[in-house]
């Protein structure tokens, strides 16, 4: 469960998000759209508690932003599959090692990891790139590594921040189909995008933002 209650966060240089309230229930698939710079990434960062609200409260799976202790944040993040807009891949290791990382963090066994990683890399179409460094991949491939890293840990919530920015339309639709099937298994999905085509003709809930404020659904 994701819940924002009158959340405001302002950066020191100005800009931010203001008085945001909404709720996403377990198993929902919700889109977040809005023009560039409207605050989508900022909003997502509050879900994985990289930013803590100036006003209001964010609740994620029973963790409250105003009560959470610093050492609880890793626990929270382990339950969320995050696809970052700027990837945050570790360039000192291979694609496979990058994808395996969240499993190591969660304490999975070696055998388990050895089985899961190739599977998910295959799912996102990165077979054959296991041993590349992230810097040796195309933009779209890097983005898919980031997606694989979020999927591999079988999280309760997937946060996808413009996950199709560097993907061509075919690959994008494949990704949405993949997310759809994961959502069918009960995983909550919250995805920001500015690709209106992608959500056109879908009957899913869409949250719209503009200039740091909710515009409606």
């Amino acid at each position, binding site marked *: 469960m994701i819940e924002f209650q009158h959340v405001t966060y302002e950066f020191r240089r100005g800009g931010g998000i203001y008085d945001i309230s909404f709720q996403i229930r377990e198993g929902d698939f919700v889109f977040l759209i809005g023009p560039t710079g409207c605050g989508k990434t900022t909003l997502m960062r509050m879900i994985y508690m990289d930013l803590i609200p100036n006003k209001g409260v964010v609740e994620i799976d029973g963790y409250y932003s105003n009560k959470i202790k610093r050492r609880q944040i890793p626990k929270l993040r382990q339950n*969320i599959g995050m696809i970052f807009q700027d990837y945050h891949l570790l360039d000192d290791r291979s694609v496979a090692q990058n994808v395996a990382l969240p499993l*190591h963090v969660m304490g999975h066994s070696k055998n388990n990891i050895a089985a899961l990683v190739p599977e998910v890399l295959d799912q996102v179409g990165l077979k054959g790139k296991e041993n590349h460094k992230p810097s040796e991949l195309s933009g779209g491939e890097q983005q898919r590594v980031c997606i694989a890293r979020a999927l591999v840990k079988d999280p309760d919530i997937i946060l996808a921040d413009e996950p199709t920015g560097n993907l061509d339309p075919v690959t994008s639709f494949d990704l949405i189909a993949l997310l759809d099937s994961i959502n069918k298994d009960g995983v909550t999905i919250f995805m920001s995008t500015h690709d209106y085509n992608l959500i056109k003709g879908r009957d899913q809930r869409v949250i719209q933002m503009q200039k740091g404020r909710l515009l409606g659904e």
Partner: protein
Amino acid sequence: MMDRLAFLISEGIRNIVRHKLTATTTVVSMVLNLAVLSVLFVIGVNSHQLIEYVRSKYKIEVFFLPDVRTDDLSRLKSEIDAIEGVRSTTIITSDDAKRIFKDQFGEDVELMLGYNPLPPSCVVNVVRDTKEPVYPEAIIRQIRALEGVDEISYQGRLITRIEKAYEQAVKIEVLIAAVILLITIVIMSGTIRLSAYARQELMKSLQLIGASRWFIKIPFMVESILLSITAGLLTYGLTMGALRWGNVLLSRYRFHINPDPMLLPALLLVSIFVGIVSAQRAVSKFLRT
């Protein structure tokens, strides 16, 4: 759990390979610093050898009254031996003294004078392998209190002066060593901090995907400890090599530098300590969010 620990340790090892440049720079920096330290350590240990040599030359001569008999002498000897600070004693009886005189001057005093004027005496050697300064006054006082002692000759002021100078030198050396140790630690931790700085983005990314502070710290610690041990061992090898070479040069002066058995443990202790502390500090700095 076991798998996770194995992973964290292997991560530490692989980080060394992944970041060869920082690893090499760190080790080189550490080795050079430790080398200065270990040279100082060796000098410190061997300066003792020098003062011991000097101390072996200290001389206290005790002259007994001429009427002290031979069996009294052995009692006196054991009484002097029992005094704290006395290493050994050598009794010279009147007859011994006569023989020595004859050896040195070719004359038999007894024949010349009709009697032996040389009193029995005793050469007292003081302890030399103590870390404390040796002051002979206390020994002298106790010897003087013994019955049968006539006169005592010793290089009192000279000994006191030498011991004072040595004490001063040790103090200065300890001070310098402490300062150098401090400098070493600061430089080494600076080096490790810079190598952490070069990887702050990676740490931030790890944190974002849910890694706890320990998950980030442990590989970094393992890496730091391994580098420290490597540096410690290399320094040890280097110091031993330099010593062997130095001893060849010094052999002309009949002086031999001994490495202390504590050198290796001390080096490892210092380097591992520095490795852990500075890795800890460096990581904490970049994980502060």
